[in-house]
């Protein structure tokens, strides 16, 4: 029984994906444009199997942490704050115009979007874009909880109620 329990936890701890540190990511390009990053549910002529582009850092804690750093370094915070949004839309949300699959997010960062999102493809190296994608997905709990930090060393989310208890209608 004891050994069974230990075995279980060994498995739980394994999580190689979470702990991997790819300090020297492959410079190879991933093809995203055109095929994988679709945004519509309607596939005219009937749905056909399509190539899927997977995030090389899916579930990776180090990538989330790097992505978080880059999110600040590359001024994503300037427009999207710490996920709540400001100039740009929030990134913690349910409804995504351009999709929240890794390939969609990658596409959005690389190409930009017409309503103000800059196109970063020419500047940010590809592996860092994937790290950003991983971090953005972690904000929405789309990455494993165990790979996502609970808080950062900043002031950001506040669950404190700062608002007066319903003062009701104005006089």
């Amino acid at each position, binding site marked *: 029984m004891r050994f069974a329990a230990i075995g279980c936890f060994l498995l739980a701890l394994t999580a*190689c994906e979470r*702990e*991997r*540190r*790819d*300090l*020297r*990511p492959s*410079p190879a390009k991933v093809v995203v444009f055109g095929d994988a990053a679709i945004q519509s549910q309607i596939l005219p002529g009937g749905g056909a199997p399509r190539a899927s582009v997977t995030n090389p850092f899916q579930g990776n804690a180090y990538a989330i942490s790097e992505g978080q*750093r880059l999110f600040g*370094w*590359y001024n994503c915070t300037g427009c999207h704050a710490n996920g709540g949004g400001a100039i740009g839309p929030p990134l913690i949300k349910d409804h995504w115009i351009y999709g929240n699959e890794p390939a969609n997010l990658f596409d959005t960062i690389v190409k930009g979007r017409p309503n103000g999102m800059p196109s970063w493809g*020419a*500047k*940010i*190296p*590809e*592996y*860092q874009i994937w790290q950003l994608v991983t971090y953005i997905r972690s904000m929405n709990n789309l990455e494993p909880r165990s790979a996502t930090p609970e808080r950062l*060393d900043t002031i950001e989310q506040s669950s404190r109620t700062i608002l007066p208890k319903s003062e009701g209608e104005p006089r």
Partner: protein
Amino acid sequence: MTWGRMPSCAPVANRRWPGESGTRPKLATCATMLFSLASAFGQQSSLAPGGTHASQIKSLGVFFFWLLGIIFLIVIAIAVASIFQRGQSTQDEAAQRRLKTAIAGASVLTILILFGLVVVSVGVGKEISAPGGRGNELVVEVTGNQWWWFVRYLNDDPTRIVVTANELHIPVGRPVLIRGLSNDVIHSFWVPGLQGKRDLIPSRVTTQWIETNEPGRYRGQCAEFCGLQHAHMALWTVAEPESQFQQWIGTQLRPGAAPSDDLQQRGQEVFLSHACVLCHSIQGTTANGQVGPDLTHFGSRLSIAAGTLPNNKGNLAGWIADPQNIKPGTRMATVPLDPTDMQPLLEYLESLQ
């Protein structure tokens, strides 16, 4: 077991430092190192102090060393002697009393010695932390980052503020106040040849005085464990006469050198059109990134990657092409560069004197 896919540092480097002549001096042998406390170790040694404070500390250390060394020898001598003592002669009451008296005496002596040591070291402690400012002090802000040093020479006149990285120039004979900050985790600013260390703690400001009368290069290194590349977070302190220092400040105040030929021109274009501008700044261009070291006068720096490599074109090429090979985990991005762009970029960066 997953042993990771992380590369280890594979030095390709040309390790000759700018201004160094000939080959490195032959390393001291084990024996000389073990038995000599002389400064055979080069520029990062607390035993080869150039700074006023470090000298005081060294003197105190030498005092401690001899005093405690003698005590150690006495204790060991007694212990060894006891092996040959065989105990017979000391079993009687009087001998016991004598021994107890000896213990008491030794204890009292210990207390006295330690009291003396406390007084001496508190005295020296006061001196090395005393404000050295006589109104002529230089105030330098050193900010620790993973894993490099941001250096800013503060001045009431903001136009006289100089920004540099991984290198500290100080004038000889002038007290320098180091204001320490950190941008991420705790680091520790430590130039052993000048002064003891002082931690750089996020959202705190720590201060330290350094001063030297001897021109020279003093190497420093982060002394608080700060993550993956703690080992490669060094900085050079160059102590130089006031006139040279002022000259250096004057150079640093100028914007980055304009490209002087087509190759450099091309290099500047490469710099400005790639990821470089996201993090680095070169005054005089539109590159104004603040999260990486300022490169306005990169060509005049001694080292690349915070003291990891001597600054020369070959090393720089290796560093830009694959920074993760030289400093695994570094924040420097691996930027995909067209091979034909590398040479112009190197030319341009090295021209930023």
